[in-house]
């Protein structure tokens, strides 16, 4: 809690966004949102993934231009464009890192605004400004160190220093703690409080309710692009906020839940350790959909990638059991051979060859089945691809088209179709419906249920809580590379998952 003498009522408003609307194609990302933050205030913006938080922040920072409404600082409405916002003193700390690996800390902090004297870099001033910035956030790091040699956490802090170095009036942080350890998080929060005490207006985006309660004065809650509520932290409780984020009180849409009849264990992982994964055991049974919940950066993707051998493990073993035979998962290819299918998170860079046809993409994992004596069987491929395309409901079902010509939803269907062709014993999906329109989403869910009913083991990672609850027969919630809790369908609801994911002890048992 800030011990500031002022309260939001007495504070002088620094930044104000008025009636912001932003559409992408058909979808409305931000829907008539207004928000005001005062000097010295830390203002939380909370909401589920896809609630429109990041879009709103990109608009505040001038990176995106709203379709309606405007942003004003000290009552003066800003010109569109990042430059104007920057000059007005709005600094955004991006979610993904945007540093130059081989440049020094000092250079990165002043990238794009390097001070010069007679054309040469004024390194004295450069170092001074950088040092001051780092000082303000109370981080000490060798200014001459190359960023490529810093830890993920330190890079995050350098990003923040970069924002602070522009001596902003408003500081916007988007999930800054996503990649930090508890100790580092703790450190960051203290730092933000110090900055706020100096009169900076801070907008703090996070899923992590405890953090919000610790440092924020007010919270604006977004859901589906709309402002649900604007609460004073002092007068509310974590559960109240979580409920508002979720919007639906403990809803279990039973009509969508299926009766699972799990069979034998297919995938069994023991003591898995890897980058951001600190010792996890996991089992997946035939005919069962196992969901993995947690926040961005909790180590979910890293976990599954380590288990099936996409990325190296530092410790632990994983085995796959197919009709009685147990095989060790040595490398990724052995996993695929053993009957595992993997739908990666990055569809466009890892899932599909965009400039190849749908048929080609579907053929890739099934090349063996579709070729005789090393020759691809054209007729068979078309027939095969068309069948699968129909199975996953690709629209239009023209397998000759480049995958890149299809929309996100259809592309994702193709990625799934690739693996269906192999009739996998276990299919692993990382964010199966990210950036997918509602219709396609429903179809993909139906597909996965169908697979499970057919006896396939399914492992799903999702940041989309309703999806997770709707699909999963059991949910493991991951935080800091560990499983914080395992929820059965009847104890799983959006609050309990969010509570575990956000590290909110109180709610974990309810």
């Amino acid at each position: 809690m800030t011990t500031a003498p002022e309260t939001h009522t007495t504070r002088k408003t620094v930044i104000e966004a008025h009636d912001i609307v932003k559409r992408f194609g058909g979808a409305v990302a931000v829907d008539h949102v207004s928000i005001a933050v005062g000097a010295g205030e830390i203002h939380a913006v909370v909401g589920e993934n896809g609630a429109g938080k990041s879009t709103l922040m990109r608009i505040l920072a001038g990176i995106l231009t709203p379709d309606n409404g405007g942003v004003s600082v000290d009552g003066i409405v800003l010109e569109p464009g990042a430059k104007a916002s920057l000059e007005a003193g709005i600094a955004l700390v991006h979610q993904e890192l945007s540093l130059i690996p081989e440049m020094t800390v000092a250079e990165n902090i002043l990238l794009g605004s390097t001070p010069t004297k007679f054309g040469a870099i004024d390194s004295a001033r450069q170092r001074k400004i950088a040092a001051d910035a780092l000082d303000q956030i109370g981080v000490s790091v060798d200014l001459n160190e190359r960023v490529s040699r810093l830890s993920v956490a330190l890079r995050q802090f350098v990003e923040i220093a970069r924002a602070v170095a522009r001596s902003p009036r408003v500081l916007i942080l988007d999930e800054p703690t996503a990649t930090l350890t508890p100790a580092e998080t703790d450190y960051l929060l203290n730092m933000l409080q110090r900055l706020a005490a100096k009169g900076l207006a801070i907008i703090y985006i996070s899923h992590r309710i405890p953090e919000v309660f610790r440092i924020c004065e007010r919270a604006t809650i977004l859901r589906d692009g709309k402002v649900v509520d604007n609460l004073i932290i002092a007068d509310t409780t974590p559960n109240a906020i979580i409920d508002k984020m979720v919007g639906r009180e403990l809803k279990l849409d039973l009509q969508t839940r299926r009766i699972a009849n799990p069979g034998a264990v297919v995938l069994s992982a023991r003591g898995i350790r890897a980058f951001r994964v600190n010792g996890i055991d996991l089992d997946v049974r035939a005919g069962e959909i196992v969901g993995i919940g947690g926040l961005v950066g909790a180590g979910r993707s890293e976990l599954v990638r380590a288990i099936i051998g996409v990325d190296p493990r530092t410790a632990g073993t994983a085995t796959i059991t197919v009709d009685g035979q147990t095989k060790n998962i040595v490398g990724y290819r052995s996993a695929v051979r053993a009957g595992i299918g993997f739908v990666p998170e990055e569809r466009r860079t890892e899932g599909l060859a965009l400039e190849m046809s749908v048929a080609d993409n579907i053929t890739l994992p099934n090349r063996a089945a579709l070729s005789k004596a090393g020759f691809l069987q054209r007729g068979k491929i078309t027939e095969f691809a068309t069948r699968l395309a129909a199975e996953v409901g690709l629209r239009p079902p023209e397998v000759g088209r480049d995958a890149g010509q299809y929309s996100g939803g259809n592309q994702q269907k193709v990625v799934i179709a690739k693996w269906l062709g192999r009739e996998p014993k276990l299919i692993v999906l990382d964010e199966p419906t990210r950036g997918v329109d509602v219709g396609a989403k429903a179809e993909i869910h139906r597909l996965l249920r169908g697979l499970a009913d057919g006896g396939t083991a399914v492992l799903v990672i999702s940041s989309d809580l309703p999806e997770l609850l709707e699909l999963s027969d059991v949910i493991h919630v991951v935080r800091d590379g560990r499983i914080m809790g395992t929820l059965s369908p009847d104890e799983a609801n959006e609050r309990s998952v969010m509570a575990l994911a956000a590290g909110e002890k109180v709610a974990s048992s309810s």
Partner: protein
Amino acid sequence: MSTTMKLQETQTGTWNRVKNAVARRTEGRAVILLILVVGVIAVQQPIVFNAYGVSLARVALVGLVALGLTLVVLQGELDLSVGSTLALTGVVVASIPDLGLGIIAGLVTGVAIGALNAFLIVLIGVNSFIATLGTLFALRGLAFVMSDGRPVRITDIDSALVFGRELLGPITPRVLIFILLFVMLQFFISKMRAGREFYAVGGNRQAAIDAGIPVKLRLFTSFMLCGFVAALAGVINTLELTAADPTAGSTVLLASFAAVIIGGNLLNGGRGSLVGTLIGAFALGLMQVGLTFAGADREVQDVLIGIVLLVAITTDPNNLRALSRRLQGLIRGKANQQA
């Protein structure tokens, strides 16, 4: 408590500071090679060191072009046309009766070629490898057309000859120019904003754009500088030889390219240094001079350079680390299977 956090990555103490300083550098392999070469020469052909003037001249030839090439490589691009540029500018210099005028014309030609390459790559959007492959052919052809396929002798030979003479000790004008150019470029790349931002363009182009760095301008700058330096090499060659040979520079492209690679410059851009290139050029240059003194067949030189290149590129620390991790994974997997 904040200070006790493991955020503190910078160890204190001189030794650690030295260790960090070393770890930051990208020139490791170049230095190793240089030490090896110097060692072997010291044993086999100590005379090389008495004739350091010669060695300097040799290094200056390839090194000059390599320096220019480095600027382009730092941004993750490539310029295959340096050899042809060298030849063409030589012909231009020699075919203009007035030497001073010729030199200027030659240098301008070089810059223009750089601008042409940059235009194709930055504005049209051609991959630099292909674009400069085209100019590689075209410029060489142009050099042949202009010279009618035979060496062109400078009209004002005597003033050209002055150029080859030694100023003080082993320092010929070529060496002097080479040193000056290195100092200037080193200053540009390490002390000037535009130069430093080359690393940003090569290291993370999107971030560079977001940070408001004029990426296209930087690319143009590097290609034009590269063209200029290649032209400078062409001018120097022509002056020293008192004639321009349209076939000149045929061996320069690959040699300077090798120097850049040995120098630890990452071809994807963003990592490397002029110092590395310099050391690389020195290592290769000394190697060649030493072998020449030893009267070794030129084929042996090719083979050695080939081996050095292959070793240098296949021992990129990052690759090896990735590979060893993969192998460890496999071994562990196997072990578990036995278990």
